[in-house]
C-alpha cells in the first residue's frame, strides 16, 4: 500500500514553486548548452544529461510527483534511456559494418565529410550518453517516488501477505 501523502505535492510552498518556475528554464538551457557544447568547453553528455534530468526532478518537487509523472510519461523516459543505448550501439556497429573497429568514426568520412570524427562523437555524446543519463535519472526518481507496492501485481505467484502493510 502506498501511503496517501506520496502522490501529493511535496510542498505547497509558494517560495519553492516560484523559485523553480524562475530557475528551471535557465537550468534546462544550461544543460542543453553543456550537452551540445561539450566538445569545445567543459561538459558533455553525462553532465548535460544530468542537468536536464534534474530539471524534471525540480518540477516534481515543486508541483508534485504525480502530475509531473503524468506529464512526462513512460514513453519519453523509456525512449530516452533505451533510445540512447540504441543510438550508441548503432554508431558503434556502423563502423564495424564498414569494416573497421567499434566507434572508428573516421570510416564515416564518405558520408559526413572530413569532420566525421567530430560528428560521430557528438552523436554518441548527445544522442547516446545525454539521453541515457537524463532518462535514467527521471526514471529512478519516479520509481523511487512511487515506491514498492507489494499488493496489486497480478502476476506475482505468492499470495499477498499481511506483511505488505507499511508502518
Amino acid at each position, binding site marked *: 500500500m502506498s501511503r496517501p501523502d*506520496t502522490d501529493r505535492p511535496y510542498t505547497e510552498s509558494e517560495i519553492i514553486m516560484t523559485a523553480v518556475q524562475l530557475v528551471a528554464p535557465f537550468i534546462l538551457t544550461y544543460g542543453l548548452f*553543456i550537452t551540445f557544447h*561539450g*566538445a*569545445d*568547453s*567543459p*561538459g*558533455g553528455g*553525462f*553532465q548535460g544529461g*544530468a*542537468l536536464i*534530468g*534534474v530539471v524534471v*526532478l525540480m518540477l516534481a*518537487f515543486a508541483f508534485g510527483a504525480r502530475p509531473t*509523472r*503524468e506529464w*512526462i*510519461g*513512460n514513453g519519453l*523516459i*523509456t525512449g530516452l*534511456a*533505451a533510445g*540512447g*543505448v540504441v543510438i*550508441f*550501439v548503432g554508431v*558503434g556497429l556502423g563502423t564495424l559494418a564498414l569494416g573497421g573497429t*567499434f*566507434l572508428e*568514426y573516421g570510416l564515416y568520412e564518405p558520408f559526413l565529410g572530413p*569532420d566525421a*570524427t*567530430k560528428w*560521430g*562523437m557528438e552523436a*554518441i*555524446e548527445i544522442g*547516446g*550518453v545525454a539521453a*541515457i*543519463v537524463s532518462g*535514467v*535519472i*527521471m*526514471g*529512478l*526518481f*519516479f*520509481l*523511487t*517516488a*512511487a*515506491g*514498492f507496492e507489494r499488493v496489486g501485481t497480478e502476476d*506475482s505467484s505468492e499470495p499477498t501477505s499481511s506483511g505488505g502493510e507499511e*508502518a
Partner: protein
Amino acid sequence: MSSVGIALAAFVIVTAVATALMRDVFSAIIVFAAYSLGMAVLYTMLLAPDVGLTEAAIGAGVTTILLLLTIAKTTRPSSEKLFAAIHWPAAFVSVVLAGVLLATVGAIPTENFAGGLTPVISNPDVTGHYLAETYNQTGVTNAVTAVLAAYRGFDTFGEAVVVFAAAVAVLVVLRKEVFT
C-alpha cells in the same frame, strides 16, 4: 588559491567525517550534499571542470534527492544524540587506508595546488600526447571529451550501458514494467 584550497580541503574532510558519524540519516544526507558541493568546487580549482560539473549535478543534486526520497519511504529512527557511537575497528581501518593513500600523494607533483605554475600531471608524456594531438585527430578542442568519446569510446559505451542497467535493475527490484 592556496589558502582557499586548504580551507576547502578541510571543509570536505570535516563534512566527510560528519557524514560517517551523524546519528540522524537526514542530517547525514544534508552534510553529504555539502561534501559533494565542496568537492565540486575543489575539482574546479584543480582544473577539472568536467569532473566538478558531474560532482555538482550528480553528487550534490541527484543523489541527495534520491536519498531524501528513500528516507521519506522508510522509517527514520529518532534519537537525541547528534553523533553515533564510533565503531573503533572500522575507524582504525579507515585511518590506515587514509594513511596509505596519503603516502602515495608524494608521487604526484603538487606544485600547482600549493600556488605554483607547474600543472599536476602524473605522466607528462601521455597527457602531453593527448593535449597535442586531440584537435588534429578528432577535431574537438576539449581533450576530456575526446578521450571519453573517441579514444576510450568503448569504455564510455560500457559506462552508459551500466547507467541504463541501473534503471532496469530498479525496475526489476520494484517489480514494475513502466517508469511512471
